[in-house]
């Protein structure tokens, strides 16, 4: 099954294609005479593609635009410019009822299983609702809800209970069942395990991997936990201040990160092994992430870049003036840095 999916992935058109995506949020000042005071460039020129059956990991620190990217793909935030093609179709041109009907093919799993489930609905109603909303009820509704819950590791006996009766891990299973009941082909997982207890995270990560294999799903897996992302992803995109700075196969990103920011990020992730920790070279970045209201000119990372200091005057000027584009290195890695060969 997996082999077939992979084969298809290499020949067929990607399921999701994103081209120069920009999501800018205006910031208003004043209450009566509102005027635009500034623009938050949450996502500022992002391009990538996700093959069928693939998991693309999206990592970065708070405010880098990773969640906004996921929401834009779900058509949950207004897109400023760019293109999103889903299964070859121009997603941004869809409106109204056509868009609503299309939604069952792409679904989202959120971080907070406490906030994403309606506390007044039973588990059954929560999982059945999307089917009913899309007019896909039918006489076998109960069976389908039960078997999806079972598939997600929930005992179908609990079908008449309410979300507050469950732990975080179980609620996340309900949220996953709800997202998958419409048999979507593409799922955005936005920090799906960050709110869960350490001993529960592996259960949910394993479940997501299993469901992908069995149902042929395509994932965009958004998280700040690089170790979890690397565990589930085929390729990983690293974002910084609204742009992708590196996009590489997951196996490569730890072994030989190309972008100076990726290198710093990797070196900052603690490894649960004292010997491994003692042997590591740490790159501790100075300062904080600049505001996406006013990203630095040129390369957005240059004010914090550990490599910048050792560059010559001409090279430095280039970092200050010219925004580096994502370019392909010989070995399938893509990096947006003027000074990586």
């Amino acid at each position, binding site marked *: 099954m997996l082999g077939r999916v992979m084969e298809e992935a290499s020949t067929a058109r990607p399921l999701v294609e994103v081209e120069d995506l920009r999501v800018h949020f205006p910031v208003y000042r004043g209450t009566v005479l509102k005027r635009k005071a500034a623009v938050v460039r949450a996502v500022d020129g992002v391009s990538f593609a996700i093959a069928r059956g693939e998991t693309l990991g999206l990592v970065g620190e708070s405010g880098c635009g990773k969640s906004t990217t996921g929401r834009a793909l779900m058509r949950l935030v207004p897109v400023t410019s760019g293109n999103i093609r889903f299964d070859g179709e121009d997603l941004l041109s869809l409106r109204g009822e056509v868009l609503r009907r299309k939604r069952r093919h792409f679904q989202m799993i959120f971080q907070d299983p406490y906030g994403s489930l309606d506390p007044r609905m039973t588990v059954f109603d929560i999982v059945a609702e999307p089917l009913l909303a899309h007019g896909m009820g039918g006489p076998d509704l109960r069976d389908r809800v039960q078997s999806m819950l079972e598939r997600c590791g929930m005992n179908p006996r609990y079908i008449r209970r309410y979300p507050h009766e469950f732990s975080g891990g179980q609620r996340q299973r309900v949220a996953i069942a709800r997202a998958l009941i419409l048999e979507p082909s593409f799922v955005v997982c936005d920090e799906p395990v960050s709110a869960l207890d350490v001993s529960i995270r592996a259960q949910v990560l394993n479940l997501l991997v299993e469901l992908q294999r069995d149902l042929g799903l395509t994932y965009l897996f958004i998280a700040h936990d690089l170790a979890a992302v690397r*565990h589930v992803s085929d390729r990983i995109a690293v974002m910084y201040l609204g742009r992708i700075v590196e996009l590489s196969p997951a196996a490569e990103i730890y072994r030989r990160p190309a972008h100076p920011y990726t290198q710093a990020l990797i070196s900052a992730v*603690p490894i649960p092994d004292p010997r491994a920790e003692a042997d590591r070279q740490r790159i501790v970045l100075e300062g904080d992430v600049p505001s996406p209201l006013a990203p630095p000119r040129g390369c957005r990372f240059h004010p914090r870049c550990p490599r910048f200091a050792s560059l010559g005057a001409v090279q430095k000027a280039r970092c200050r003036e010219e925004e580096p584009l994502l370019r392909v290195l010989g070995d399938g890695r893509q990096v947006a840095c003027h000074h990586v060969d």
Partner: protein
Amino acid sequence: MSELLLQVRNLHVHYPVDGGVSRAVDGVSLDVRRGETLAVVGESGSGKSQTMYGVLGLVPRPPGRVFGDGAYFEGEDLLRASERRLRGIRGNRIAMIFQDPMTALNPFLTVERQLTEVLEVHKGLRRKEARNLAIEMLAKVGIPDPERRIDQYPHQFSGGMRQRVMIAMALLCRPSLLVADEPTTALDVTIQAQILELLRATRREMDGSIILITHDLGVVAGNADRIAVMYAGRVVEKGPSREIFESPLHPYTRGLLASVPRLDAEQKAPLVPIPGQPPDPSRLPSGCPFRPRCPAATARCAQEYPPTRSAGPEREVACWVA
């Protein structure tokens, strides 16, 4: 090196709940040596923070109840100390930093006011002297331009900078024990690296001890000399950091280590999750509270809580099977 700074013996922190008792801490014993970092590791609800709240007199009483055989800090039993005495110790001999500095810093006061107050209350310094010391400390914890920033309010600082302010405040009185409760959990990973680096430097300089409370095994690995693993209000395993990671004895510790994805692991090597979920501390199962999730449980585990026993020169474990 072996001199004990803090000795906690059989500590309990209980809260009444409908028709019963929630045993947040259920008989914890810990030692902290001078100059070491002890990591207390556990999931939410394991009692790791409540243990320190109990020791420091921070459990609201009533409804909470704190009792035990003692919590000796530099020879003095804090469980039997007066509130007045505890106030003289907290923030002075024992300082604390929390996950969210915004809840610990007063949003209505400038950083200067908050830092100098510590020195005026505990050391009887005058405002001017205190201000100079505070500026010096802010510079030491890596806050740029401290003469100007000291007059700002907490909301004018970023998350990482606020945590630095908290650390500066904690270190002002030169405490011999720093309790860091999830100090980097709310921070991004590159900022976490900065703060952990600062804590390591701090410990070298202050020549005191640190209790690092965390759920993050990665943070523990690079920063602790010894580890106490907590589960359901008890310490299930204790020992030197390297030994715990290399040869964990308790099935819970083993399970935890096998279930965490590692950045340096073989890709897609399957994670082995711990089944089930942690118990409700007001409805603990009989015998060992980990038993319902334990792959090695026997009939005996359902009957009696396993006593803590020695398992090597520096190791202790509470398990019938290990």
